[in-house]
């Protein structure tokens, strides 16, 4: 046994590139899994920390409708009811103005410093100018106009020091704040949660955010009986919810985004597993003749088997270790992009520290080691179970590989069919089925790959022979006869490349659908809104002065107003997400109906609803999916007048909101809510008035209004929307690129080692008269051919993957039906080019080595 291990060690020393390439492949596979998963987990954790530090010890909170929670309630709770744990909060997003432009997004958090100690000790002992690490200076915070305090990291990021005054922009209006102090929370959690938060006094926040008289919430620490008692005395329109609901809202906000990432991380797991498997299997298959020789020399089956497994274990272990390190580095890079998207689209949440979950590391390590060893098992078993003499011969293995390819193809075909069946069955049934469908299809495609390779090689034989003569025909035949190695390599590459195709197809289909939808829904000529971020609970609203100025502009034929508010969902219970629903109140214009693409509903009924002639609500498709609602169903929500039942009259397509929303006419909204605000407006140009001219006129009219209001033409808004879309999918695009890199390196490694294996074969060829140039041509041709095979095979697999992602995974995650399914030629071409160019690059070194190795030395090998 020790003699065998010594032999292995000498083999490694002799041919370091073999184990090196195997180790690299394993490392890569493990790194991808760690990287994607850690980036995903770190983003989630950043959210949780933000919520944790802001929720603190509070068990409950009181929130309200569009009007928030009135100031008076706080007095009622603290003075009349003696609930001294009642801590108010006023929250909103703002942009810090940098060089007269909108810069970093920050969260303005107004609190009552005197009410914080029991609930949020982080504030209580947040440090101030006191060198001993004391407390913030309450005096300046209370008495300086616009006084804010931030953690030092945020001060640095903003480029401000204590004493600086700077401007922030809230709902388009600029206000001056003064940094009066830094917060130095002692615990790390609080410090992280306070990144990019401007902490200020309650009064300052109300003034900065234009929310005088209104609180966003009151946090409380209550026991169950106190909570029940409190619930009964709350005025209509206000509700008591458990503090964990806060987490729910943020979670839901990014759920689809994160689910998308999870899908990608599972995909990377699969690709990683195949890479590891491929690398190990090749390493053993390569050894087969040697194993036969060892057995012929008297080594027992068990000894040989054990030696192979030990080698596999060592390589897997080394590769896994390297992969874990590489993965953490990769996670850092990915997190930058993921964090950027989250910051941009969802909230002022600072996502920067990579936090690697021990589970992720365990999973990735298991993947590397278990798959690595398992991959070695089958070929090692095969090599030790046959007669030693047979093991030394490649022909036996190859003929069996061919017959195996045939059987595998059948199994693969069945798996693909099962996968698609699962895909159809999975619609609306949960992610596990959807992932199972993806897995089945990918496994099936992998099993089909050897047969596909054989077929493609057969097709290539004639043209290659014609164009390149004997070098061409040798390239094809050698690939065919070495099927045990080439098929595995092609299958792996195909899988890696198909991931890039699938993601490409998904993104493109999505984008195209959204673009078409925007074309329908953006039917008006000019859109007016206030700049805002998706994370705000309540949209900013248009200043009445701005509305007046707009409507006074000449050339407007019709207009429509919108107001979106979140409200309590009382029934039905959502299949996912919080019991909250967004409603949009709309004043219809003649063109309104044309803006909807209805999936279900009767047009006359819809008209009646919009005209407020009958009660009812139009719901977006994601909401219908989330609540399992159909036309005729009932939607019960909390209004300022108490619970109200809306009948679902129609379902329309919408890609703007993952959680979905309902639409009701303004007239009915005004009867049920005390909220005169208007969030945005759509305007139609009069005949003969150019929309761009109208936009300009509106902008001119708005110049006199202090609020910053965006007036955008139909086209500009569409472009902006698509831009946002592209930013949302930036992570997916990056992951796609990452898959490409993995595929590239995988192809490089696998095909390079495949060719290097042919040392003896080429030496024989050289001995019988092949010139180095012929060898070089043959090597390049074979590699190019295999790369091409992998690229071509990845197209159907990738399209199938894309279809599943679009129709199953996303339909489930977002509730979106994508009408367009596009297979962009660019993506397909990229796949083939990627695969082929990597293969050709992989030929360079082997071609050089093989054509220059002295014949005698090549023949002496092994």
């Amino acid at each position: 046994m020790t003699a065998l291990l010594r032999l292995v060690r000498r083999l490694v020393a002799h041919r370091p590139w073999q184990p090196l390439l195997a180790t690299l492949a394993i490392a890569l596979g493990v790194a991808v899994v760690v990287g994607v998963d850690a980036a995903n987990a770190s983003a989630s954790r950043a959210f949780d920390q933000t919520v944790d530090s802001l929720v603190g010890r509070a068990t409950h909170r009181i929130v309200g409708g569009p009007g928030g929670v009135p100031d008076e309630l706080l007095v009622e709770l603290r003075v009349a009811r003696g609930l001294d744990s009642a801590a108010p909060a006023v929250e909103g997003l703002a942009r810090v103005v940098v060089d007269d432009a909108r810069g970093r997004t920050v969260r303005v958090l107004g609190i009552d410093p005197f009410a914080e100690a029991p609930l949020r000790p982080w504030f209580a002992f947040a440090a101030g100018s006191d060198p001993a690490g004391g407390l913030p200076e309450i005096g300046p915070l209370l008495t300086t106009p616009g006084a804010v305090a931030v953690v030092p990291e945020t001060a640095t990021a903003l480029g401000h020091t204590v004493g600086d005054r700077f401007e922030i922009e809230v709902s388009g209006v600029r206000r001056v704040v003064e940094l009066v102090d830094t917060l130095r929370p002692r615990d790390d959690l609080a410090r992280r949660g306070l990144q990019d938060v401007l902490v200020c006094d309650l009064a300052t926040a109300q003034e900065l955010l234009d929310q005088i008289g209104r609180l966003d919430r009151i946090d409380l620490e209550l026991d169950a009986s106190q909570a029940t008692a409190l619930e009964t005395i709350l005025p209509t329109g206000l509700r008591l919810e458990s503090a964990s609901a806060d987490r729910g809202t943020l979670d839901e906000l990014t759920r689809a985004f994160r689910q998308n990432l999870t899908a990608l991380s599972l995909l990377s797991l699969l690709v990683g597993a195949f890479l590891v498997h491929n690398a190990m299997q090749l390493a053993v298959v390569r050894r087969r003749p040697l194993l036969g020789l060892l057995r012929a020399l008297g080594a027992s089956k068990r000894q040989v088997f054990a030696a192979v497994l030990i080698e596999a274990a060592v390589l897997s272990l080394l590769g896994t270790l390297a992969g874990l390190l590489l993965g953490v580095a990769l996670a850092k890079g990915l997190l930058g992009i993921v964090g950027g998207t989250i910051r941009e689209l969802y909230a002022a949440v600072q996502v920067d520290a990579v936090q690697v979950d021990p589970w992720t590391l365990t999973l990735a390590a298991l993947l590397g080691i278990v798959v690595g060893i398992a991959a070695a098992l089958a070929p090692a078993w095969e090599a030790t179970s046959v007669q030693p003499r047979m093991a030394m011969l490649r022909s036996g293995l190859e003929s069996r590989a061919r017959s195996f390819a045939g059987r595998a193809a059948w199994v693969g075909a069945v798996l693909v069919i099962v996968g698609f069946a699962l895909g159809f069955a999975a619609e609306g049934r949960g992610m596990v089925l959807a992932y199972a469908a993806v897995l089945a299809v990918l496994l099936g495609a992998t099993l089909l790959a050897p047969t596909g390779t054989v077929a493609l090689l057969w097709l290539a034989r004639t043209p290659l022979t014609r164009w390149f003569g004997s070098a061409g025909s040798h390239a094809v035949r050698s690939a065919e006869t070495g099927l045990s190695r080439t098929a595995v390599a092609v299958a792996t590459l195909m899988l890696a490349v198909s991931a890039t195709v699938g993601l490409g197809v998904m993104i493109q289909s999505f984008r195209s659908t959204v673009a078409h939808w925007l074309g329908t829904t953006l039917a008006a000529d000019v859109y007016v809104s206030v700049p805002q971020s998706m994370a705000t609970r309540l949209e900013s609203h248009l200043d009445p002065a701005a509305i007046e100025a707009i409507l006074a502009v000449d050339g407007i034929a019709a207009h429509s107003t919108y107001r979106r508010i979140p409200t309590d969902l009382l029934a039905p219970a959502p299949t996912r997400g919080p019991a909250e629903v967004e409603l949009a109140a709309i004043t219809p214009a003649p063109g309104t109906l044309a803006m909807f693409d209805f999936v279900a509903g009767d047009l006359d009924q819809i008209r009646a609803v919009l005209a407020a002639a009958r009660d009812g609500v139009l719901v977006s498709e994601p909401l219908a999916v989330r609540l399992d609602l159909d036309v005729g169903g009932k939607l019960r929500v909390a209004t300022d007048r108490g619970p109200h039942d809306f009948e679902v009259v129609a379902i329309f397509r919408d890609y703007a909101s993952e959680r979905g929303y309902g639409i009701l006419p303004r007239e009915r909204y005004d009867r049920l809510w005390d909220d005169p605000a208007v969030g945005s407006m759509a305007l139609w140009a009069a005949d003969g008035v150019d929309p761009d001219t109208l936009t300009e006129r509106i902008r001119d009219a708005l110049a006199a209004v202090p609020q910053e209001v965006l007036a955008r033409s139909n086209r500009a808004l569409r472009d902006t929307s698509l831009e946002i879309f592209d930013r949302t999918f930036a992570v997916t695009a990056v992951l796609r690129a990452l898959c490409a890199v993995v595929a590239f390196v995988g192809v490089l490694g696998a095909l390079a080692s495949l060719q290097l294996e042919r040392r003896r074969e080429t030496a024989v060829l050289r001995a019988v008269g092949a010139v180095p140039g012929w060898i070089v041509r043959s090597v390049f041709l074979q590699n190019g051919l295999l790369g091409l095979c992998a690229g071509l095979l990845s197209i159907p697999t990738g399209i199938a993957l894309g279809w599943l992602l679009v129709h199953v995974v996303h339909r489930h995650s977002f509730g979106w039906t994508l009408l367009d399914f596009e297979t962009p030629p660019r993506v397909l071409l990229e796949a083939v080019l990627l695969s082929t160019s990597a293969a050709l690059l992989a030929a360079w070194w082997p071609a050089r080595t093989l054509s220059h190795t002295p014949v005698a030395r090549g023949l002496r090998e092994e």
Partner: protein
Amino acid sequence: MRRALLFMALQLAAACGTSDDDRDVQRPGLQVADVLGNGDTEGYAKALEIRTFEFPADHGAHPDFRNEWWYFTGNLMTATGRRFGYHLTFFRNRLAPPDPTASDGPVSRWRTDSVWMAHFALADVDGGRTFDHERFVRGAGGLAGVTAAPFRVHCEDWHAASDGPEELFPLRLHAEGEVTFDLTLERGRDVVLQGERGLSRKSATPGNASYYYSIPRMLGRGAVTIDGERLEVSGSGWFDREWSTSALDAGQVGWDWFALQLDGDDPADPLRAVDLMWYRMRRSDGTADPASKGLLVDESGTSAALDFEDVTLTELRHWTSPESGARYPVAWRLVIPSRELDLTVEAALDDQELDLSFRYWEGAVDVSGVRNGNAVTGHGYLEMTGYVDSR
């Protein structure tokens, strides 16, 4: 004036650096020094000359001055003789002087430059326990504040409030924490002005003084809920009022302040009795400051100021706090030869140290001794500060 000193001492303690004991740091929720202002007296009104007091208006706020307080202490007893001491105080503190240039935009109802602090302590003498609580509340939006007619001072739901606009009595006190305290003060003696007709000078520096009046004896009944048990109580109390914008003199480290109520001879009118206030200011060298002063109100309600030379004060016994290590004198001999008064004052319970943002001793005391050759008894309240080493 003594509470002006309490503020000053708090400021000193804060200026010397808060302790780094986690418990201490977490509890107050903010730096005491901030709440109490930074010692800058610029821009505030000052107690410069003798003024005319008007009631009920002067029960209300004097917002041009930086600090102001409403101080209620007293001794209570159940019908079965279980004894309690109470201490409920509301402090108004302004963080910044009035600013006539303040912006004119829409202003939040929570906008304020004043912070209220309230202390509530209940000494369960027989149970050997003291319960102490404090609150910091912004002086805006109706969370904390004071009105003169009807009189009501409150920090959230802790309050002292009159029923109607005309009369101070009945005056209802309420506070709760681990224990609940409700007391209705039904009647009391007339207001007495401290110092020179209410102007209590602290040093020769003009303005280094406060306006100070007291109601030295009030009678009432109420209830204490302790360990879930509601106990009916009755007893007497003392009410102190003071406002100022002044700073602590250099060299003064603390004070011992007595509010003593001797039992009267007339069971029909318990208000006809002798009440005595005395504070001794201590200097860093351990001696008493000549600025120490007092007031004696006799049975007829006639009050007379007591000066430094009038009173001899001797420490008889000490108690060392296991919590802070401070060594407090808990038994005293107080002699006023000119009044033929020789009293022994002893803490009803040694451990009445209050573990609040600022640590001090404030508690119920028993009085016994001789007046005009006759034995007298009584009770009162004692406040001692400056015994905890400033770290």
